[in-house]
């Protein structure tokens, strides 16, 4: 995972709460963290436009609530948690919006990904995304953090509030399901 320099982030904390330094420190925070947060969101939402919206919402929430950051976890873990919550909220809203239609939200995501200008996957990669989308939402989150984010279970545990053992088991099951899906649909 492209984890930003922890020391640099920690040094920003007092600056983020100061009235005069807040703006510049926030700008620095965005520059340091936007890349991994974007990819985390994108791996869940697949479509660039949606990921861009959620990334903006994430930083707006961070700007609004930076004063509430207590330092119980690292700043990056806290940001990741906000990004995860924003992503899950966005997905829930989209699902609600689509309850009136018979189209499954996951199917819609897949077709939107295909139509997205910023996707150039081939047939196999499409099938791989299809396999990931058949996982339950939370399991998909765990899978993406590990597979795409290359994240340690320890950090995943801090973000999701789930034990490392449960995360390992969940990831293992997810991999087996995906493997089975890929082999069966050949």
């Amino acid at each position, binding site marked *: *995972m*492209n984890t930003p320099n922890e020391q640099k982030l920690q040094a920003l904390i007092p600056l983020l709460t100061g*009235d005069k330094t*807040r*703006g510049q420190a*926030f*700008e620095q925070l*965005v*520059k340091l963290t*936007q*890349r991994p947060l*974007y*990819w985390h969101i*994108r*791996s869940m939402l*697949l479509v*660039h436009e949606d990921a*861009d919206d959620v*990334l*903006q919402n994430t*930083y*707006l929430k961070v*700007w*609004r609530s930076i004063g509430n950051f207590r330092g119980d976890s690292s700043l990056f873990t806290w940001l990741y948690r906000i990004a995860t919550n924003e992503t899950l909220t966005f997905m829930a809203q989209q699902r609600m919006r689509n309850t009136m239609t018979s189209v499954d939200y996951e199917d819609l995501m897949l077709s939107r990904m295909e139509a997205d200008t*910023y*996707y*150039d*996957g*081939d*047939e*196999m*990669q499409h099938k*791989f995304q299809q396999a990931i989308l058949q996982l339950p939402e939370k399991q998909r989150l765990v899978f993406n953090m*590990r*597979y*795409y*984010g*290359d994240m*340690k*279970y320890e950090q995943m545990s801090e973000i999701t509030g789930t034990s490392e053992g449960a995360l390992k088991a969940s*990831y*293992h099951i997810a*991999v087996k399901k*995906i*493997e089975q899906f*890929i082999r069966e649909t*050949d």
Partner: protein
Amino acid sequence: MVTKQALYMMTQNDILDRLLRSLDDDAMQNNEAAAEEGELHFTLPDDYFTSFSDRLSKKLEAGHNDNAIGLKARNPLSAPLRIAMAVASAAAMLVLFFSTGFYFYNEQRAIDAQVESIMAYDDAVDSLIYFVGGQNIEEILADATLYE
């Protein structure tokens, strides 16, 4: 030349291989290249990250308050107009409340009047039955002729 099927199989093998490796805790650590590999089929607009942070920065430069970065939608109406609209909507709600109440009060009164008239009719029928006392109406009429 690599055929489409061969390319498909190569991608499949890569994915399955990476899935297998990802189960091994140690193999995943510091494996930056593998992480990038997974992102290859997702692309981005040129200079996306620069433009993204610029967009946010511009909003911040406009002022360090919630409105400046778009957290709260600005209300385009002036304060006196907003107060006038609030008073007007409260008045409209009151009118609606009382007119609805008056309508239901009148309806209830009409229903009560109908019930009363039905009850009066029932009382009259009951009195007649009591007066007749269950006798055959012809017998009563026959008895009545005795006194003619």
